[in-house]
């Protein structure tokens, strides 16, 4: 029996002074599967993604990552295993230039200069950002920010990826490029959960589709 990478056990979550967004949800995500999470606006998809990454902590139930209860894990610890892309990429970029955005974590983790350079330039190339490498990230267009945010997440080589609406603001060509990259990662054995409305994108990539409605899973198709 394969171990789930992320397991949610009877998880409930409500924002401060609000009705619950997620109510008693259980779910197992496997590294071997590419899982798509869909559902109408306001059905709790983003909240679910944030709970899985530990950005939001559930009031009830627990989230188990790699067999460990994540309640005892620091966000930084989870971040070493799981890469997360925010719905609004503007929320996760913070460096003064595009290339520093990508190299930021590598430097702090003690990678050698040569390794950083090669990984950064590779990543700039993959995401078509080479000619923007010195630009100020906040001034990029929405689509460029999106590509930068994904590049910065991937360069850390996480084991599992959670992407919230990764195709927003990307044109057709770049959506195709992104799905090629994700397919490549899948072959390398990186687990993935993608929150998306984009049916074409999902159909091409997903092995499993979870449909949410009103904070519950209404369909789970493999």
């Amino acid at each position, binding site marked *: 029996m394969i171990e789930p990478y992320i397991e949610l056990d009877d998880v409930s979550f409500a924002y401060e002074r609000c009705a619950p967004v997620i109510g008693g949800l259980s779910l197992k995500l496997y590294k071997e599967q590419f899982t798509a999470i869909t559902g109408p606006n306001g059905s709790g998809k983003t909240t679910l993604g944030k709970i899985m990454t530990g950005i939001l902590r559930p009031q009830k139930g627990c989230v188990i990552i790699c067999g460990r209860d994540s309640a005892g894990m*620091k966000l930084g610890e989870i971040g070493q295993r799981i890469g997360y892309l925010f719905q609004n990429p503007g929320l996760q970029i913070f460096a003064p230039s595009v290339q520093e955005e990508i190299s930021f974590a590598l430097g702090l983790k003690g990678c050698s200069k040569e390794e950083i350079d090669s990984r950064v330039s590779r990543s700039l190339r993959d995401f078509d950002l080479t000619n923007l490498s010195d630009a100020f990230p906040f001034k990029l267009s929405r689509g460029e920010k999106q590509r930068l945010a994904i590049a*910065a997440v991937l360069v*850390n080589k996480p084991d599992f990826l959670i992407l919230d609406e990764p195709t927003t603001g990307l044109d057709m060509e770049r959506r195709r490029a992104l799905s090629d990259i994700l397919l490549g990662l899948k072959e390398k054995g990186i687990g993935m959960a993608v929150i998306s409305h984009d049916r074409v994108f999902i159909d091409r990539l997903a092995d499993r589709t979870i449909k949410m409605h009103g904070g519950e899973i209404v369909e789970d198709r493999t």
Partner: protein
Amino acid sequence: MKTGLKGLDPRSKLVLVLCLSTLGVFIQDIGILTAVLCVSIALSTASGSRLFVLIRKFRRILWLFVAIAVIQSIFAPSGRVLVSLGGIKLITAGGLYKGVAMVLRMSIVMVSATIMATSNSREIVQGLVQWKVPYEIAFMVSVAIRFLPLLTDEIKNVVTAVQLRGIELDRIPARQRVKVYSYLIMPVVSGAVIKSRELATTMETRAFRAYPKRTSYMVLTMQRIDYTVIITSLITSILTLILYIKC
């Protein structure tokens, strides 16, 4: 419909808050200050503020208050020496008294501000507009006030984002941590500035200031309790001040 102090008009709250903070600023006596603080806490709770939630949230910076009291007493020594170190008067009775008064004063201002926070920004703006404050100024004030939460949001997002890149901030050495923080200041501030500029642009693209006048869909009406609160707080504060000055 909210009842009692919870349904108070923002204008009445404003008067109440101004009265409380005026008392806090003028009065030196620790006994009276403590009493004013107690009244502020009682009123804040009655108006439905989340005072205790906030205190719990900010409990980490409560030691700052103690630090202020100590610093105040070091720099303004007077009276009997309580603690000294190598001839330097560290804590004196007079200094300590002033320090405590200072802390009480700050607490009064902050606690009474939580009463204001029970109204949302639109209600406060509307209160000002109905008090004949020009609407441009009222809205500009609310935009300016919004900058602070924008900045804290931005900081929170960046700290989350950094950790999600697999960096355990409390594990890296202090010197490097300072470097990381200083590296992040510029983008955080400019991010908040850009965002507030975009919000201001959005307001203009929705015809803000197209005409010298503006209708308000929201209309505030004063109830009997509002008049009671305004009159009571004005009279009580004036009387307290007069008595305090005379005695």
